[in-house]
Structures are given as structure tokens and as C-alpha cells.
């Protein structure tokens, strides 16, 4: 499945970014604890000990909350940058099939993300034993959760990289996919509210049922996992990003195997995606700018003006990003 020669090539090609990712992912978790400990020590130096607590609480903003960033960077380096720099041709010319190439890239990144964070988790656990804080909140839940979420982010950007022909397109597609459920559901609903002058929650039996549904739907939006609000929910919620990871992996694997590589430099490798995606971008532009126009002055004129601006902006943005080939 993963060839040693290919693995070595990937390692040499992305040595710096892999090492930096490992360093960050290994150190982020223990450094958070060290930071909390140093803050506690600082407090003890300045104030009476009764006013100082040594509490490790992972629900408060923590360095490991951005552990998904190395996943994104690795995926862009593995696919988008290879296509943008023109080095993908060299890999494809080697004596391996496309499945092997994708598997090698994917699992190299996957192991870097998962193993580094597991080591970081272990180090943090040892530090907790050594420092012996008064309370530790959400340590396991948060540490394991960010592994799942960073793996999902990596899978998502890898899938986007397998569909697109350059690094910019990869990032834009990944971001769009990360907010796609919001774009598909919330934008049209918001526009319906404007057109019919009603609030959507009014058709629900109670406001609570509406907010409950909205909250549940937001769990399907990959970007919602960037902030650690998932910590206050059930641990089983992490099954959603885990399933998403598998789905993105499959999309990436099949796309990398099947899509034509002669379109490197273009936005989409499969040119049949160009037109439907352009129409979608324009539709989102119309709906998004329309809402923005309405809420600036709460007037229908603002709404219509916003829609016109959205249509024009959507057209030009989609035209220049999708139809103009990047130099490779």
C-alpha cells in the first residue's frame, strides 16, 4: 500500500513542513500545561496563595485548539503545492499507481498528525502527574477530540487537493466545503425570512425546538469544530468528524485515482465541475450579498441592490478563479 521509496520521496520533498508540524503537535499540549503552571507560579509570586488556583481547564482557549492548522498546511504541501510547482508530474511518472501515491501521501500526513498528538498527549499526561494541579478539566476529551478534528481537517483539504489543480483552488474548495451546509441551508432560509417577512423559528412548535435543530445542524458544518464548543457536548459528537474524515478520505482517494492530471493549474481537474460550481458561487453571492444589503438598512431596495452586487461579484470571482488557469 505505502511504498518505501515513495515514502522517502515525500519525506525529502516536505521535510521542513513535516518536522515543524511534528514539533508543534508534540509540544502544543505539554506547553499549554507548562504555561498554566508558570501562570500559577507567577500568581504565587505576586499574590497570597489563597487567591491562586492551579487548574488545567481545556475548555478555556488552549494552544491545541489550533492543532488543525498543521493538518491543513501538510495537505496543501502534499497536493496543491505539488501541482502548483509542477512536481506532481514527476511523482506520476514514477513506477507506482495512483492509489499508492495517494495512500502514501495521506497516511504519511495522517501518522504525523495522529502520532505527534498522541506523544503530546502522553507528555501532557506526565506533566499533569508531575505538577499535580488542583483540578484538570476536559483533558482526555479535548486532547483526543483535537486529534479527530485535525485529522478531519487534513482529510478535507486532501480531498479538495485531489479535486483541484492548484494550491489556491485547494484551499478555497476546502473552505467552501467546510461551510457548505451553512451556505446550502442557512442562506436560503435567511432569504426566505426577508422575502416573506417572517421568522423561520415561528413555524416551529417552540423556539427551543428551532434552536435545538439549528444547533444539531451546525454539528454537520466542518468549520464549526474549529472552536472548541464541541467540548461541552457529548463525547460521541466526535463521531461526526470521524465519519466525515472517512468520507473525505474516500472522495480524495477516488478523485486522485480517476481525475485527469493534465488539468494541473486549472481550478478543477474535472472540467465538468466548472459550470455548476460557477452557478453555485453566483447563487451564494446573490443570496449572501442580498442578505447583507437587507440588514444594512432593513429595506427591500438594499436587498435588491445587494443581490445585484452579489451576482456581479459572484460572476467575476467565479470566472477568474475557475476559468483562468494558474501558470504551472
Amino acid at each position: 500500500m505505502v511504498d518505501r521509496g515513495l515514502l522517502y520521496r515525500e519525506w525529502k520533498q516536505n521535510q521542513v513542513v513535516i518536522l515543524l508540524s511534528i514539533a508543534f503537535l508534540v509540544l502544543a499540549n505539554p506547553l499549554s500545561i507548562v504555561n498554566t503552571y508558570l501562570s500559577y507560579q507567577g500568581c504565587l509570586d505576586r499574590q497570597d496563595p489563597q487567591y491562586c488556583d492551579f487548574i488545567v481547564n481545556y475548555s478555556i482557549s488552549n494552544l491545541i485548539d489550533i492543532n488543525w492548522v498543521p493538518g491543513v498546511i501538510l495537505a496543501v504541501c502534499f497536493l496543491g503545492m505539488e501541482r502548483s510547482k509542477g512536481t506532481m508530474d514527476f511523482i506520476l511518472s514514477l513506477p507506482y499507481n495512483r492509489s499508492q501515491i495517494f495512500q502514501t501521501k495521506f497516511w504519511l500526513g495522517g501518522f504525523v498528525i495522529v502520532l505527534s498528538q498522541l506523544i503530546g498527549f502522553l507528555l501532557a499526561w506526565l506533566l499533569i502527574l508531575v505538577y499535580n494541579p488542583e483540578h484538570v478539566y476536559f483533558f482526555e476529551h479535548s486532547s483526543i477530540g483535537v486529534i479527530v478534528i485535525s485529522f478531519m481537517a487534513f482529510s478535507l483539504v486532501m480531498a479538495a487537493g485531489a479535486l483541484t489543480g492548484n494550491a489556491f483552488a485547494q484551499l478555497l474548495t476546502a473552505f467552501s466545503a467546510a461551510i457548505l451546509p451553512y451556505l446550502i441551508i442557512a442562506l436560503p432560509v435567511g432569504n426566505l425570512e426577508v422575502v416573506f417577512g417572517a421568522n423561520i423559528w415561528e413555524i416551529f412548535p417552540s423556539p427551543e425546538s428551532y434552536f435545538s435543530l439549528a444547533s444539531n445542524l451546525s454539528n454537520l458544518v466542518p468549520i464549526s469544530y474549529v472552536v472548541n464548543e464541541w467540548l461541552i457536548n457529548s463525547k460521541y459528537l466526535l463521531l461526526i468528524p470521524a465519519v466525515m474524515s472517512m468520507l473525505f478520505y474516500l472522495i480524495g482517494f477516488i478523485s486522485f485515482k480517476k481525475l485527469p492530471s493534465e488539468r494541473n493549474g486549472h481550478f478543477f481537474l474535472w472540467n465538468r465541475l466548472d459550470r455548476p460550481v460557477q452557478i453555485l458561487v453566483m447563487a451564494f453571492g446573490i443570496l449572501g450579498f442580498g442578505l447583507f444589503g437587507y440588514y444594512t438598512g432593513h429595506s427591500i431596495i438594499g436587498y435588491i441592490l445587494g443581490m445585484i452586487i452579489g451576482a456581479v461579484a459572484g460572476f467575476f470571482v467565479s470566472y477568474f478563479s475557475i476559468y483562468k488557469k494558474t501558470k504551472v
Partner: protein
Amino acid sequence: MIELRQLSKAIDGNQVLKDVSLTIEKGEIFGLLGRNGSGKTTMLRLIQQIIFADSGTILFDGVEIKKHPKVKQNIIYMPVQNPFYDKYTYKQLVDILRRIYPKFDVTYANELMNRYEIPETKKYRELSTGLKKQLSLVLSFAARPALILLDEPTDGIDAVTRHDVLQLMVDEVAERDTSILITSHRLEDIERMCNRIGFLEDNSLTNVMDLDELKEEYIKIQMAFDTDVNLAIREQNIPMLDQAGVFYTVLIPKSDEEKKSFLRELKPKVWNELPVNLEEVFIAKFGGKRRW
């Protein structure tokens, strides 16, 4: 060795290759000619499976490459530029390639590096165009392939380096029976190296010919006349390579006695029959239309 069967490929709706078939035997050097955009590079990329053909098959020693990509251990593709090499030194590249190509011969690579005095400690991107081509060739040959696909290997390099690059290829074929498929705009390079040539034109591979036989087919005649015979020669559709005053140089098939008699009837004062080169043959064969 390598066999292309009914290969077709369209890119972004444009047909680039249509039903192209070709076989290259062991130890053969095949020259692929064609204008810019005729599909020469596409053909090499198809063989190496960088892109996939819409239809047709490519076989290496009877094995379909698409289904068994491991046979590409015997095939090396040297593109015009290889951005992957840029950030590495020779040693680092050897370190990478020897893990991918099991037959990679480090001793032979070192020997060639010394022979051609290529700096080993500089990164690939720091080398001149000629040295880059030489280093790429050294690495390609050191992988001990049975077939090398060379895309414009002499493009952008000076005459001395070109000589070295060509010599390296000729030596390799002579010593190891390696087959080479080469694309080039330079007919003199093709002429010097190739056994056979073929033209990619209008999406098809045409005029696949043995080079020596081809050159034997034609004769170049230098003549001097008292009067202006330009129109008379052209009316007979005889390709004229050159005219300087009363001196005329024309090309005719060796066996075409009718045209030879016609020229003799014009009573030339001077008549010299000379061997031809590839460029002249093409002018004769394709009616003076330069296609490369």
C-alpha cells in the same frame, strides 16, 4: 520493447492524438518530429502514465503499463524541465532515486559525473541549462532503464554541451542497448542519433521511416546555367533548395530518371551530385513545407 496501440487523447475537448500506433525495438533510437503543440510531449506523458489515454493501450514487453505500473522501473522520462530536482544536489537525488529504481547504479552515476565534470555539491537549480540536462541524463541512465523518453534534450544548450549530451546518449545505446524515444526540433540532432523517425501531424503519426533508407532515396544536384531556368524547374515541381545567381541546388528522388533527364536537357554548365541531409530530404518530401 514498447508498443503503442491505437492511442487517442483529447485535452480540454481538443483532439491531440488519434489512433497512434508505434513499436520501438530494443537498442533503437526513435526520433519524434512535429511542430509545437503537435502532441509530442503528450505522447511521452501518455507512455509514462502521467496522463491517461482516452483509448488504446501501451505495452512494455507485452505488459500493459497502466495495469502494471511497476514496469516503469524500466522506463525513464526526462521532461524539458524537472522542477522536482530543483532543490536537491546530485547526492540527494541519487539518494531518492536509488530507493525508487532498484537497478540504480550509483557507481555508474559517479563515473558519468566525473567524466562530464558536473558539480556534485551544487543544487540542481544552481546549474546551467546544459549541466541540468547532463545531470538529468546521468540520473536517467544510472537508473538502468530499458527505455528512455527524452523531451527536447538538446533544447537551449550550446553546441559543445549539445555534442556531449548527444555523445552520452549514443554511448549508452552502444554499450547497453538502451532504447530511446526522443523529441527534438533540431533535425541535425535527430539525424545524428536516430535509426527511425516519425512525424506527428494532424493528431496522427505519419511518415515513420528508416533514416538511412530515406536519405538513400534522394539526391542533391548542384547546377550552373547560362540562362534563368528558375520557372522551368518550378513548373516541374522540383524542390529547389537554393538559387544564387546562375547556381541552382535542387533535390530529386534518386530513381526519378525523368526529372534528371529534364534537368540535363536544360544544358547545365556544371553538374554535381551530392549526398543529402535530413532537412533537405524533408523539404523534398513535403514540398518545401517546413514542419519542425
